[in-house]
């Protein structure tokens, strides 16, 4: 299976390309092909993760069998394999969810979706900066189409802003890449990492400026404050299956920052070691704050989910900025569980909002603020026995509660494990109870931000849950099995991560350790032989 690494890119590319000219009036063939490709991606991703974990080393796939640094390489390590698994699982759930309604809302939904998956997989696998740009453009171009899927004035308006911001960010990406090439003469990430320590001092400012400009492009994607104002309107306007896969798209920015900052500016990088860490920490904490305020302030469920994306991005960026192995390991657990939970939440919100009047949420919050007095009391008298909650609402409610628990980082679900690992890493890098605790100012700020953002999420989700689930028993939405199944699958994965907390934590810690010691990655890539 030496060609396994190319399959996550090649399969969706082929599937998407076949779908475009397909003669298929009712969309059944396209849907079947899409689901088959998504299932295959899940299988490939799990196999790659299994190989990466058992083999331990970095495995390389050289496209066209060219020698490394001349040709392009794909690199599979634990982090890349983890991201592939997340992409495949979220992609499969969003596709299943789209089968009942959303796939028919516009043309070429399935083809765009496959290209989106291809772009995501490619961005996670590539070991070359310019190829990263190409895959970014592939996933962005597909996401422009998906963001506009279903059309309508809100989508076009949000899409216009989204596209223009991303085009500008892509230009920054190009400037950064070309500056780094101008200084070092290579674009292969491993080769860059081995050349940076020996760089003459006069070229260092130019390299760091290039890396900072490149970082701006990734941070725009990850929606760091103040680069992330586009995220709320776009995600709220996008159709739910698209929004679910977009929740992973903001993780691409986080992934690129995590990979490159530790590879290029890790402990071996000489004078540039730890470049940008403080900025990431500060920016991440600001993003957590902005996200917390926006979840509390919003009156709309989709905006609430958008706020959760911001909090999750901020938490991850700040954890990367903290620059400790234990914190990174915790952040990876948090990354996986929050990506799954946010994906589930976006799908769930559509089910909850189905059959409700437009503006009902706004009205509910207004009522809460000004009070509606007598009306409610009369109702309570007639309903002395209490209302029976319909089964549909019970399932939706429990799913909503699980999402809230994961996102707020409360026990017993996997969000708690991630947050706990991060907090224990911040409090004491050596491990709790060993040696005296040492905490810097940044560490304190991150600690407070993590706890407060969890609290804000609980408040906001509890309010939204009460208003849309308990206070709304009269209009029960019609929910198909195919629609609730993906949501339950995503939540089930979070539960499984909690149940198998030991193996999950070991995998993530091993991934974090190999990220923090980039020598292994560099050696693996540079010494790859035909």
């Amino acid at each position, binding site marked *: 299976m030496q060609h396994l690494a190319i399959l996550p890119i090649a399969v969706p590319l082929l599937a998407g390309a076949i779908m475009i000219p397909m003669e298929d009036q009712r969309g059944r063939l396209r849907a079947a092909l899409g689901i088959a490709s998504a299932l295959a991606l899940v299988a490939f991703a799990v196999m790659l993760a299994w190989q990466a974990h058992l083999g331990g080393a970095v495995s390389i796939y050289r496209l066209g069998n060219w020698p490394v640094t001349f040709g392009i390489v794909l690199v599979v390590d634990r982090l890349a394999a983890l991201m592939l698994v997340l992409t495949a699982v979220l992609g499969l759930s969003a596709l299943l969810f789209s089968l009942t309604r959303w796939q028919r809302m516009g043309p070429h939904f399935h083809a765009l979706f496959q290209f989106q998956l291809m772009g995501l997989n490619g961005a996670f696998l590539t070991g070359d900066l*310019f190829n990263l740009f*190409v895959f970014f*453009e592939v996933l*962005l*171009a597909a996401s*422009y189409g998906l963001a*506009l899927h279903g*059309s*309508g*004035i809100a989508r*076009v*308006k949000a*899409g*216009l*802003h989204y*596209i*223009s911001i991303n*085009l*500008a960010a*892509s*230009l920054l990406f*190009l*400037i950064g*890449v*070309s*500056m780094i*090439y*101008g200084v070092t003469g290579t*674009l292969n990430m491993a080769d860059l990492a081995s050349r940076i320590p020996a760089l003459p001092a006069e070229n260092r400012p130019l390299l760091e400026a290039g890396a900072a400009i490149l970082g701006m492009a990734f941070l725009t994607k990850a929606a760091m404050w103040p680069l992330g104002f586009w995220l709320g309107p776009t995600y709220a306007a996008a159709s739910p299956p698209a929004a679910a896969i977009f929740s992973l798209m903001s993780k691409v920015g986080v992934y690129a920052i995590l990979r490159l900052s530790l590879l290029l500016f890790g402990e071996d990088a000489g004078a540039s070691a730890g470049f940008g860490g403080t900025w990431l920490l500060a920016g991440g904490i600001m993003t957590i704050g902005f996200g917390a305020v926006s979840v509390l302030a919003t009156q709309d469920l989709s905006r609430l989910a958008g706020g959760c994306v911001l909090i999750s991005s901020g938490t991850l960026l700040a954890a990367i900025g903290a620059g400790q192995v234990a914190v990174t390991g915790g952040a990876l657990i948090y990354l996986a569980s929050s990506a799954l939970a946010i994906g589930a939440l976006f799908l769930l919100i559509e089910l909850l909002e189905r059959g409700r009047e437009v503006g009902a949420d706004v009205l509910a919050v207004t009522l809460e603020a000004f009070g509606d007095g007598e009306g409610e009391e009369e109702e309570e008298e007639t309903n002395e026995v209490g209302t029976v909650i319909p089964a549909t609402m019970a399932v939706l409610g429990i799913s909503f509660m699980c999402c809230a628990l994961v996102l707020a980082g409360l026990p017993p679900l996997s969000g708690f494990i991630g947050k706990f690992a991060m907090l224990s890493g911040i409090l004491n890098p050596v491990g709790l109870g060993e040696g005296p605790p040492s905490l810097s100012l940044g560490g304190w700020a991150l600690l407070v931000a993590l706890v407060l953002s969890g609290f804000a999420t609980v408040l906001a989700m509890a309010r939204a849950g009460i208003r849309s689930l308990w206070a709304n028993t009269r209009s029960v939405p019609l929910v198909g099995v195919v629609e609730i199944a993906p949501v339950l699958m995503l939540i089930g994965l979070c539960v499984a991560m909690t149940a198998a907390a030991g193996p999950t934590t070991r995998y993530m810690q091993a991934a974090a350790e190999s990220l923090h010691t980039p020598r292994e990655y560099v050696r693996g890539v540079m010494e790859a032989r035909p």
Partner: protein
Amino acid sequence: MELILAISIGVLGGSGVWLLMRPRTFQLIIGLSLLSYAVNLFIFSMGRFPVGRPPILDPGTSGDPAVFADPLPQALVLTAIVIGFATTALFLVVMLASRGLTGGDHVDGRGPGR
């Protein structure tokens, strides 16, 4: 040569950024195009300026890098042009859709004055 290139990148980039801040979608797209020209020239300039040197080796020779131009930035520019062209075309379509739906060319769909 360096001065001319630097000035042209600066002028293109500056005008592009200014147009990017304007409230009309037409100004936005012209701004993005100008910026992408500036960026393409910038990538090209990162391969230094070897005037009159070929980027391809003659068959059978091993070649001294000093007498050849670096072909990689040229390849990068080519890719960037193609991708930039495609995304600009896509952006134009969205712009037209927005124009059709909102009846104006303001970036927020509505704005003061016409």
